[in-house]
Every structure is written in C-alpha cells, then in structure tokens.
C-alpha cells in the first residue's frame, strides 16, 4: 500500500520505489549522514562564524545567522560534493543567510548596503593570510593584559556575561564598560602589530 503523502522526513525510499521498512537500516543511513554532517560542520563552525561576523559583527546576531545556516546546510547536505572542501561551501550558504537576515533589519542594511557586504567578504578573503600572521600573537598578548582587563575580556567573550552584569561587577557604567572593551581591543591590536614587526623586517 503506497502512501502518496509519504513525507520528506521519512523519505528513505529503496530502489524499487518502496519505503524501506527496516528501521535499523533506515536509521543507520540517516544516522551516518548526520554524523558526517556534524563532524564537517563542527570543524568549520568557527570559520563560518568569523565569515558571518565580518558582515554582522554583533556576536549574538552572528550566532543566530550561523544557526540558521547550519539548518539549511543540513537540509541541502545531499547536494554537497564530498570531494570539495566543506568550509567554502558552507560560507556560500552563510552569505545567503546573512543577506536574508539583513533584509529584515534596516540598521544593518544601512551598514551593508550598496554592495559593501560583498566587498567586505571579498576583501577579508584577500587579507586572510595577513590576519593569520598578526593574530597568531593574540593569545600571548591576552596574557600580557593587566588582571582587571583580562577578566573583563574573559567575562565578555568567554563567559558571555551580559554588559549589565559586567558593568555592575566593576562599578562602571555600561557605556564606560563598552569603552573599556574598545580600549582593550585596541591595546591587543597594538600588541599583535608590535610583535609582527620583527617578522616583517
């Protein structure tokens, strides 16, 4: 009895066109695909995140977009050619998702309009080797920060503590806390660039 309404979700249909009825086999196959996907995706996730963040730097927003990207990647995973690298494939989806996401948000449109999104994505690609070179010193530079700055950076980026809480903890205002984060990043930038000098010489 063939049910014409068979869903996509359960769609393992064997060669003779019947639904497979062996649940073990059915799950074995989709389970294996899931594992393959998960393993590829998790390896690329940070890179995809940075790709998105180059366009939408706000961390929670970028994470939302990455999450949506993951879902559409999984949905289109059948179309993925395993002989090709996964990350660029994933980044193409991420760019699309980012575009869709921006469409509904006027503020971000203002930032990325007139082709700037594509230009940024493109230029970032070109600068990648240079960024790698500079940022390999980031960990060392973090280690050199004074204790209070280190714990602020750690609270914001690693523990993901809210700005209200961080401000409350240090007795600063929220605006001052943001300012402090900006200054620390600036200090880190100066530090990694100072370290790069000998390499260039």
């Amino acid at each position, binding site marked *: 009895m063939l049910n014409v*309404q068979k869903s996509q979700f359960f769609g393992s249909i064997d060669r003779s066109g019947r639904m497979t009825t062996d*649940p073990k086999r059915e799950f*074995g196959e989709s389970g294996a695909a899931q594992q393959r996907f998960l*393993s590829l995706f998790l390896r690329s996730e*940070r890179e995809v995140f940075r790709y998105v963040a*180059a366009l939408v*730097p706000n961390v929670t927003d970028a994470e939302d977009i990455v999450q949506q990207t993951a879902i559409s990647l999984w949905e289109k995973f059948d179309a993925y050619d395993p002989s090709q690298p996964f990350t660029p494939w994933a980044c193409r989806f991420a760019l699309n998702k980012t575009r869709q996401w921006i469409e509904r948000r006027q503020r971000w449109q203002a930032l990325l309009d007139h082709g*700037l999104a594509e230009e*940024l994505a493109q230029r970032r690609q070109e600068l990648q080797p240079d960024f790698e070179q500079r940022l390999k010193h980031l960990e060392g530079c973090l280690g050199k920060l004074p204790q209070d700055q280190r714990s602020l950076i750690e609270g914001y980026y690693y523990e993901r503590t809210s700005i209200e809480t961080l401000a409350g903890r240090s007795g600063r205002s929220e605006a001052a806390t943001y300012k402090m984060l900006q200054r620390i990043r600036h200090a880190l930038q100066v530090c990694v660039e100072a370290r790069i000098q000998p390499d260039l010489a």
Partner: protein
Amino acid sequence: MNLPFPSPEFDHVAAAVCHGSATEAEMQGLNELLRSNADARDQYLFQVELHSRLASNPDLFSQFQDTNDRISLPASKLGSQRNVVPLNPVRTPARRRLKVVLAVAACLVLIAGGIGALWFKRSENGATSAAVAMLTRTVDARWSPKTHPLGVGSALEPGSLHLESGLAQIVFYSGARLVIEGPVELRLVSANEAVCVSGRVLAEVPTPARGFRLRTGQLSVVDLGTSFGVSASQSRTEVHVFKGKVELQPGKAGEQSLAEGQAALVQGSELPQLMAANPEAFAPMFEFQERSLASEAVRYDQWRLSSAQLNRDPSLVLRFDFENLSDLDSTLPNKAARTGQGEDGIIVGCQRAEGRWREKTALEFQSVNDRVRLAVPNEFRAMSLSVWVCLKGLDRDFNSLFMSDGFDPGTVHWLIRRDGVLGLTVFGPRFGKYQILASPPVSSLENLGMWQHLAVVIDGKAREVVHYVNGSPVSRHALTISPPFRVDGAELGNWNARAGPNPEPSLIRNLSGSLDEFELFSRALSDAEVRELYLKGKPDL
C-alpha cells in the same frame, strides 16, 4: 553622518558595531566611509576580525582558566562562588557549541557504537523489570568478575557493582547521576538510594531527585539538591559538597548539614570533623562529567537538526517543540511549516522545566489548572499522535495526554490510566457510540522520572489503532468507528469536560509530569516511522 578616518569617532563606531549598539546613522556613516576609503575598510576588517576571534576561540582563554577557577580551593576562600567547581555550569549557547567542537571527536565514536547496542538492550519489556538505574557511559571501565558483564545502556537492578578501574556514569530513574571511579563497590538499593561500600563517588542530584540518599559504612548523606563527592572505606567516610547542601546522618549522633565548599570526615563513631571541600580529589570524575555534558549537547544538536526537517513534513498538522519557553510566554508556537491548519497552543498555568537535555525546555503539568489549549478545525482520514513525556505520577484514574473537549462525534481522547494502560477513545458519529482501545499495562511506576516516547496511530483506511512505547508497538486493535476523525478544541495534559464548575473526580484528568515535544500528523505513520521518531528524539545515545 560624515565619519573621518582615522579618528576617535571611527574607532567608536567600529566598536559600537561589534557590540551591537551602533545607531542607524552611525552605520550609514560607516558604510559611506568604508566604500570610499580602502584603508578604513582594511582597518575595520581587522578590528572586526580580532573581535570575532575573541568571541569564537575559547582556547585563547585556556591560560586564564588554569589559574583562576579550576580545581584549586584555598581554604581561606571557602564557599566563595568563584572557587567552586560547577558541575552544571550555566552555559550560553555559544559556549556550549564551542564545547561541542572540543568533544565531537570523542562523541561521534559514542554515537556510532551506542545506538544499536542501546536500543536492543532496552527493548525487552523494561516495564516489568526491577531496574532502578541505567549505565549510561563508561571510560576504560573494568568490572570485577563478581559483576555481571555490563555495557553502556544496561538496565541496572538492585545489587552490587564492583568497578575495578576506570570510570562509569549511572543515572538513577529518579534523575540522580553518579559517577564512580574504580576501585569502587556500589550497591544499588532503589531509584532513590545507593550504598557506597568503598571507593569514590561523585553525585549530581537535580531538583526532581531531591532527597536522594547515599549511604556508607559510617553515615547517610541525604541530598538537598546538590552535587557532592563521597570517598568511603570500611572505617572512614569523607563527604565533600561542591554545590548546594546535604544533610549528614551519622549512625547515632545528630544530623548535621554541610554547605557548599564544606567537607566532613567521619571515622568510626567519632563526631564529624569539618574541613574544606577538595574538588581536586575528584578531578578525573569532574572531567568525565564535563565530557558527558558535552556529548549531551551533541545529542541535543542532532535532535534540533532533525527537528528542522520534521517541521517540513507535509502531513504535519501540529508540532510543538517546547523550545526556548520563558515564564512570560503564553503561546506555544506550532512549528509545522506547510500546513497552516493548526493554530498555536495557549499555555495555561504550567511550570517551565528541564526537557530531555539540560538546555531544552519543557512544560511541567501539575495542578488541575495546567494545560495547553489548542484548536484544529480539520477532518482526517487518519491521525498519528506522538509525544515525549516524563511522568511524575499517575495520580488520576485517567491522566490526559491529548484529549478533545467533551465527547463530540469523531473526536479522540488519548490518556494513561492509573494502572499504566495506554488508552485511546474514539467517539462515533452519533452521541453515545464510542470505542475504547486500551493497551496492556505498560507504564509501571519505575518509569516515573524517565523521558518516554508515546505514540498512537489511528488508521481509518486499514481500520486499525496501534499504541507505541519508545518506538515499539505494544498493542494493535481493530477499529470499528469509521472516519472522518477530528480534534476540534483539545488540550494537552488536561481535559475540558464541559461539565460545570465542580466536576466529579473521574472528570478531573490532569497530567502529572512534563512534555517537551508533541506532533499530530494527518496520516497513519508506519511502525518504522514511529520508531524513527523515537530514535531521533531519545535522550541518550
């Protein structure tokens, strides 16, 4: 807005974009600058890159972790939050995902090995066994010959476990989780009690399992919603509290409570000697616990991915995933993508609770008022209902899973009876005509506190009703009522009897327990499909 470069204004706006606090005017100004000035664009890209590295690479912070809040507990800072090693740290989605990255290599192996083995071991009528716990995870575990051969997924009945070396995690049906480190002898007494004869045990007891009791030769530790470690031998017991509070009940002396960061040593019949808790002594067990949390996160991620697919099933009328519910939410969104038939559910009362995984939300039904109201106007030739439920008790004669209001023609009532029978009532085209399709008892008390998958398929064409528990059919019945079937107004976890303000007891049918997923399909799922729903949603590997 005209933004000069280089300038403090530029630095400010670039930072504000990273923090998500930039105004539209600022963003527009930045857009104009970046399109016209290549240096500014490169500078901006680098600043953003530095920001996104910090946000996406937790390894950068590993050096701080080692010096700050790991495993070291100077006695002077006893009880200070910062120095307590959290067993169940509150993690943002981002942190969790990054944890997942670290854990994935190990976990994929577990996934590959776990699914088949677990399924087949658990399938043999778990409902009537005397099991009180389950072995959920091991690392290099070597069991003594005195212990029956155990594999991950083995159901554990009361009795002794001897682990010679390695680590193992045991989840009690009450929800308490123990990690044991060999050499250790542990005696399981009930879903709520165990005896550590000798060796080291790390216990984590979530709120529903409060009151879990761990005994040793010298004393009893009664958990008050905590994590604690016990190290026992014949003549001495150490109890270390890492989170929350426990109550010590030494043989004859009075009770004593121990707070977070405290530890006690009891030797012979002496009074307990207080000291500082020492997480270092339990370090391998904490690490093991961390890893298992990470693999739980992988399981949750897998479920979310398959959820996204399931939502697109064209025969899906209603799907509630109970995700991200806050106390303020009063609607339960219908996630079925293509139908547009089912409306959102309305949450009345109910507590927000933990679902199958720590980061998943569920709704807990407890009082007679708690319910999710919904309405589906369509008629169906066939229906399939599927739910993930964690029962707390079978308090009523009839405990509602999903029941249409009243007794209208063509509607259905799906419920669990007090004696553990799954029941489906289908009402015929005329008032007074109905058919009850009841399974044999399947849900004995020992399943309380465990997440279970229940499903029922009503096939109008084949004239058959099938009940399922955890993916397996438990009974098949010929159906005498003919389609169409309807839902109309209905409730999850309760029933609107339309019987006036003081209904008689048999008409009170509220559920005691939590739900964290529900589906209604407009067709009859096959056995294989129901099983797949179960496999895709089952909490552990």
